[in-house]
C-alpha cells in the first residue's frame, strides 16, 4: 500500500523535472560532485606536464626529467580516465533509481484516476507515456546535475589555464562562442516543436496498434486488414516526414558545433604561430595552449548537448505530466479510522450525472434502498442503468445531488471503505492473465489481510454455486502435474486408475484401449508401442528417436529399422498421392501421421528418393518419424502387418531390458499397485516412467493417467463416461483435489483461454467470494445459459436474502418477480418503481415492457 511520502504534498503531475533530481538520493549526488571536482585536477595536470616536457625536459635535454614528467603524465591520465568511468556509472545508477521512483509513483497516480479520464484516454497513450517516454527521461536524469557542473567547472579551469598562459590568445580563441549561443538555441527551438509533434504522433500510432490488437477478433471476422493498415499508414507517413525534419535540424546543430570547433585552432595557429616566431611565446606554451583549447571545447560541447537533451527531456516530461494532470477523486484510505464495511442502506437524493457538453445521462434520481433489499434495475438500452450502478459503486461521481450509504456521503468515503462494502460485477467484466485462483482472489486480496483470505472449502463452494465446477474439473484433468505437485495425491490418483481398470473396466473398454505390457496397442503410436513409457528428460520423444543412437542400434539388431523405413515410405507416398489437392487443409490431416505443414517436405522428399531405404541421415529421419507416429487404428491409410506387431513387441522387451533397464514383470499383473521404485532394477533409470499400472506418468495429463490408455472414441468418452468418472472421483473424495488443481489453470491474456460464459461465471465467483454487504450486478448473467442463470438467481433468492443489499441490472424481465422492488429507467429518469405485482397492475411502462418481451 502506498505510504504518503514526504514530498507527496505537491501533486505528482505538478512537480518539475528538477523536483525529482534535487530531492532524491542527495548524498549520492553530493559524493558524485566531489568525485567530479577531484577528477578535474587530474585532467588539468597533464597539460602542465606537456608544457614542462617541452620547455624543460626537451629544451634542457634532461632524460631523467623527461621520464619523470612522462610518468606523472601517464598516471594522471589513467586516474582521470578511471574517475570519468566511475562518474558515468554513478550518474547512470542515480538516474535509473530516480526513474524507478518516478515510474512507481506515477503508475500509482495513474491507476487511481477516475473512470471518466479513461473514457477519453486511449490506452496506447498511457502505455507509451509510462514506458518508452519515461525511459528516455531516465537517461537525462542521472546526468542532470553532474554534467552541467562538470562541464562548467572543466570549462572554467581550462579557460583559466589558457588565460594564465596568454590572455590575448585566450580571448581570441573563445571569441566565436557567443555566435553559437545565439544560433544553437534558435535551432533547438525548431527541434523542440518538431519533437513535440513526434511524441504526439507516436502516441497516436500506439493507440491505433493497441486498438487493433485488442479488436483482432473483429478484424479477422470482417477481413478488415486493409482498413486497419490504412489507419496506421497515415501515422507512419506523418512520423516519417517528422523524423526527416527532426534529423535535418539535429545534424544541423551538430554541423554548427563541429564547424566552430575547427575554426578555433585556425586562429590559434595564425596568431600563436606569429607570436612564437617573434619570440613572444614559448613553443611549449603553444603546445599546451593548443591542448587546452581542444580540452576546453569538450565541456563546451557537452554543455550544448546537455542543453539539447534537457530540452528533449523537459518536453517529454511535460507531455507526460500534462495527460495525467488530475487529482484522484477519492482518498485511498480513510483518515483516522479503519475502513468500514457498511450494512448497505443506500439513499440517492436528486442525483444528476452530466457528461461533456452538458448531456444529462441521469436526472433527479431519488431512491431509498434499505439494507438487504433486492432491487432490479430495468429499462431500455442506453437508459442509464449501468451509469447508475457505477455511481452507486463510486466509480463515477455525481454532478449534482448526493448519494449516501448508511449516512456517509459517498464523496467522503475512501476507496477502501467502498472496497469493503461493495462487490460489483461489471457488464463486461475483465479477467486478468494468471490462474483461475488468482482471478478469484483478485477482489478480496486487495482489501483483506493475508490471514482473512478464504480457504479452499469456501472457494470451491463458490465455484459450485456459480456453476463453474465442471469446467474447473476439466481443467484439473487436463493438467500435467510435476512429481512435486502430484505427491500428496499420487496414490489416490492411482487408486482411481485401479477403479477404472477393474470395476469400471467394461464400461471404459469401449472407449479406451488400456496400456498392457504384453499386448500390441492399436490405438497407440509405434513409438508408444516400443518405448512404452516416457522419459522425464524428453529423451525418447518421437522427434528425437531417430537420432537416438542406442535406440536405433536396437532397431537395427532386430531388423526393424528397414521395415519401419518402408512403412514411413508407404505412409508418405499414400498421403502425398491422396492429398496432393488438399495439402493446405488441416481437416484432411487429422487421421494422418503427417502434419499439414509437413506436406511439402515429404512431397519433396519423395521426389528425391528412389526407394524406401535412403542413404541420407536426414531423409531416413523423416521417414522414420512418420513411422514412429503411425497409429494403426487411427491412420487407416496403411495397415499394419501382423508380423510387424511381433517385432515391435520384441523391440519393446529389448528396449526395457537394455536401454532403460527396468523390470516390467510387475506391470503385467493387472491390479498390482506396487510402486516401481520399490522393485529392484527399477530405480536405476528412474527418469524413465513406463506405462505401468503402478506408475504415475508425470509427462501426461491427469486424465491420461487415470484412463491409462489411448482413447478409442472421444465421443463415447464425452457422452457418458466422463460423468461416470466424475462420480467415481466424488465417491473417492477426490473431486476437490482435482478442482484445486484445475484452479491453477492459466486463463491467458484477458482470460482469452476461457469461453465467454466461463469468464462471466469467474467474474461472478470473484464478486461472491468478496462477500461484501452490497452486491451490484450489471447484466451479470447475460451471457450464461438458462440453467446457469437460474442457478445464480436461486442463490440471490435463497442465500443472499436478508444478508445482502442487491442491485441488479437485468434485461430478462421474467427474472424480476423475485426482487423486492423494480426500478424502471427511461432516458435517465426513474419512471416507475414497485414490486412486480404492483407494476403489472398499474399497466404502465413495465407492463408494456413485459408484454413486448413475450
Amino acid at each position, binding site marked *: 500500500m502506498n505510504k504518503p511520502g514526504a514530498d507527496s504534498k505537491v501533486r505528482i503531475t505538478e512537480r518539475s523535472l528538477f523536483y525529482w533530481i534535487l530531492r532524491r538520493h542527495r548524498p549520492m549526488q553530493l559524493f558524485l560532485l566531489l568525485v567530479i571536482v577531484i577528477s578535474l585536477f587530474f585532467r588539468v595536470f597533464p597539460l602542465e606536464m606537456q608544457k614542462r616536457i617541452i620547455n624543460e625536459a626537451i629544451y634542457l635535454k634532461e632524460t631523467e626529467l623527461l621520464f619523470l614528467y612522462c610518468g606523472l603524465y601517464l598516471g594522471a591520465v589513467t586516474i582521470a580516465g578511471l574517475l570519468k568511468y566511475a562518474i558515468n556509472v554513478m550518474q547512470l545508477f542515480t538516474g535509473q533509481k530516480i526513474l524507478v521512483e518516478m515510474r512507481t509513483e506515477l503508475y500509482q497516480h495513474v491507476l487511481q484516476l477516475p473512470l471518466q479520464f479513461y473514457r477519453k484516454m486511449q490506452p496506447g497513450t498511457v502505455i507509451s507515456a509510462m514506458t518508452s517516454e519515461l525511459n528516455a527521461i531516465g537517461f537525462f536524469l542521472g546526468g542532470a546535475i553532474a554534467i552541467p557542473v562538470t562541464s562548467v567547472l572543466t570549462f572554467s579551469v581550462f579557460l583559466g589555464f589558457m588565460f594564465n598562459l596568454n590572455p590575448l590568445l585566450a580571448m581570441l580563441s573563445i571569441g566565436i562562442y557567443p555566435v553559437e549561443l545565439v544560433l544553437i538555441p534558435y535551432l533547438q527551438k525548431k527541434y523542440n516543436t518538431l519533437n513535440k509533434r513526434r511524441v504526439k504522433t507516436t502516441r497516436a500510432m500506439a493507440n491505433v496498434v493497441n486498438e487493433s490488437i485488442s479488436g483482432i477478433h473483429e478484424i479477422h471476422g470482417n477481413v478488415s486488414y486493409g482498413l486497419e493498415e490504412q489507419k496506421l499508414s497515415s501515422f507512419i507517413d506523418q512520423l516519417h516526414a517528422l523524423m526527416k525534419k527532426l534529423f535535418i535540424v539535429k545534424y544541423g546543430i551538430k554541423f554548427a558545433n563541429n564547424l566552430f570547433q575547427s575554426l578555433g585552432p585556425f586562429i590559434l595557429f595564425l596568431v600563436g604561430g606569429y607570436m612564437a616566431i617573434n619570440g613572444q611565446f614559448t613553443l611549449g606554451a603553444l603546445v599546451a595552449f593548443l591542448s587546452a583549447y581542444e580540452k576546453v571545447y569538450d565541456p563546451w560541447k557537452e554543455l550544448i548537448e546537455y542543453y539539447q537533451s534537457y530540452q528533449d527531456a523537459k518536453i517529454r516530461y511535460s507531455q507526460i505530466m500534462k495527460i495525467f494532470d488530475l487529482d484522484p477523486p477519492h482518498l485511498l484510505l480513510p483518515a483516522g479510522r479503519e475502513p468500514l464495511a457498511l450494512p448497505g442502506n443506500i439513499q440517492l437524493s436528486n442525483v444528476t450525472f452530466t457528461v461533456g457538453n452538458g448531456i444529462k445521462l441521469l436526472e433527479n434520481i431519488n431512491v431509498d434502498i434499505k439494507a438487504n433489499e433486492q432491487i432490479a434495475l430495468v429499462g431500455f438500452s442506453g437508459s442509464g442503468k449501468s451509469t447508475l450502478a457505477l455511481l452507486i459503486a463510486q466509480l463515477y461521481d455525481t454532478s449534482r445531488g448526493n448519494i449516501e450509504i448508511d449516512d456517509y456521503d459517498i464523496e467522503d468515503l475512501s476507496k477502501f471503505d467502498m472496497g469493503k462494502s461493495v462487490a460489483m460485477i461489471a457488464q463486461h467484466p475483465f479477467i486478468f492473465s494468471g490462474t483461475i485462483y488468482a482471478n478469484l482472489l483478485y477482489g478480496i486480496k486487495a482489501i483483506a489481510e493475508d490471514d482473512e483470505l478464504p480457504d479452499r472449502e469456501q472457494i470451491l463452494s463458490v465455484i459450485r454455486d456459480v456453476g463453474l465446477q465442471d469446467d474447473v474439473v476439466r481443467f484439473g484433468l487436463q493438467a500435467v502435474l510435476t512429481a512435486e505437485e502430484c505427491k500428496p495425491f499420487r496414490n489416490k490418483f492411482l487408486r482411481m486408475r485401479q477403479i477404472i481398470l477393474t470395476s469400471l473396466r467394461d464400461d471404459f473398454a*469401449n472407449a479406451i484401449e488400456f496400456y498392457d505390457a504384453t499386448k500390441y496397442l492399436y490405438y497407440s503410436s509405434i513409438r508408444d508401442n516400443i518405448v512404452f513409457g516416457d522419459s522425464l528428460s524428453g529423451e525418447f520423444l518421437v522427434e528425437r528417436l531417430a537420432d537416438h543412437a542406442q535406440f536405433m542400434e536396437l532397431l537395427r539388431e532386430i531388423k526393424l529399422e528397414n*521395415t519401419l523405413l*518402408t*512403412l514411413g*515410405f*508407404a505412409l508418405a*507416398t*499414400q498421403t502425398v*498421392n*491422396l492429398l496432393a*489437392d*488438399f495439402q493446405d*487443409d488441416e*481437416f*484432411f490431416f487429422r*487421421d494422418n501421421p503427417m502434419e499439414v505443414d509437413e506436406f511439402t517436405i515429404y512431397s519433396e522428399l519423395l521426389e528425391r528418393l528412389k*526407394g*524406401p531405404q535412403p542413404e541420407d541421415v536426414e531423409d531416413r529421419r523423416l521417414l522414420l518419424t512418420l513411422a514412429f507416429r503411425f497409429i494403426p*487404428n487411427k491412420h*487407416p*491409410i*496403411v*495397415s499394419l*502387418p501382423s*508380423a*510387424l506387431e511381433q517385432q515391435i513387441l520384441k523391440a519393446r522387451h529389448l528396449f526395457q531390458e537394455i536401454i532403460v533397464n527396468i523390470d516390467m514383470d510387475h506391470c503385467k499383473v493387472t491390479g498390482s499397485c506396487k510402486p516401481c521404485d520399490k522393485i529392484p532394477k527399477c530405480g536405476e533409470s528412474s527418469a524413465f516412467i513406463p506405462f505401468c499400472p503402478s506408475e504415475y506418468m508425470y509427462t501426461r495429463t491427469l486424465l491420461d493417467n487415470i484412463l491409462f490408455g489411448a482413447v478409442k*472414441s472421444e465421443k463415447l468418452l464425452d457422452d457418458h463416461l466422463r460423468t461416470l468418472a466424475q462420480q467415481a472421483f466424488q465417491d473417492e473424495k477426490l473431486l476437490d483435489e482435482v478442482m484445486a488443481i484445475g484452479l491453477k489453470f492459466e486463463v491467458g491474456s484477458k482470460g482469452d483461454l476461457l469461453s465467454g460464459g466461463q469468464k462471466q461465471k469467474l467474474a461472478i465467483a470473484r464478486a461472491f467470494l468478496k462477500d461484501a454487504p452490497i452486491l451490484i450486478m450489471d447484466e451479470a448473467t447475460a451471457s450464461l445459459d438458462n440453467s446457469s442463470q437460474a442457478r445464480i438467481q436461486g442463490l440471490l433468492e435463497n442465500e443472499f436474502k436478508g444478508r445482502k443489499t442487491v442491485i441488479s441490472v437485468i434485461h430478462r424481465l421474467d427474472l424480476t418477480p423475485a426482487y423486492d422492488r423494480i426500478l424502471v429507467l427511461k432516458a435517465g429518469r426513474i419512471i416507475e418503481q414497485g414490486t412486480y405485482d404492483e407494476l403489472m397492475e398499474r399497466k404502465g411502462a413495465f407492463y408494456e415492457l413485459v408484454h413486448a418481451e413475450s
Partner: protein
Amino acid sequence: MNLSTQNPDLCSKCQLTDVQEFLTRFPIFSGAPAGVVNLFGYLSKKEEYKKGQSILEEGKNCDRLFLILSGKVAIFQYYNERRFHLQLLSGDGINYFGELALLAEFKWFFSAEAWTDVELISISREAFSKVMERYPESYQSMVRKIINVRIHRFVDQSSYLLDHISPEAWREYPEEEE
C-alpha cells in the same frame, strides 16, 4: 501405389483399399470418380458397437452417414412414448442409414441400436462437404443418388408399416373434419 512391391509383408491386406472397395458397392458411391471414392474411404471411420448398444438417438444432432459392414441394426421411432420398430438392416446386404445427414443439419427423427454386434463405416457431413468443395461436378449426381436412396427407404418403411397396420386404422378416404 502398391506397397507390396517394396515389402510383401507390409499391407498385404490394405485397410484403405478394402474400405474403398466396400464403398463402391453402395449406390451413393457407385459411378463416382475414383478420386472421390478414395477420399471418402480415407475420411471414413470404422465404428464398432456391442449388441444392444445405442448407435444414434432420436432428437440428437445428426452428423454422419452409416454403412453397415457386418451385423444387424434395428431402426425404430418413439411415438406417444411407445417404441415402434421400423426396419432391421443387415450387413449381409447393402445397408446404410442416416444418409440425409450428409446434406443437411437436423435432429435425428429415428433411433438406431445394435441388434447384434455390429461394425459400421461412418462418413461425416464435414468430410462430405470438404470433398464436395473440391469436386463440385460430382455434387449434383451425389445429391440425386442420396435422394433416390431416401425414397427407396421411404417406400420400404411405408410398406412395412402398412403391412402391420391394425384393421381399425385402415381408411380409404380422408376423414371428415368437424
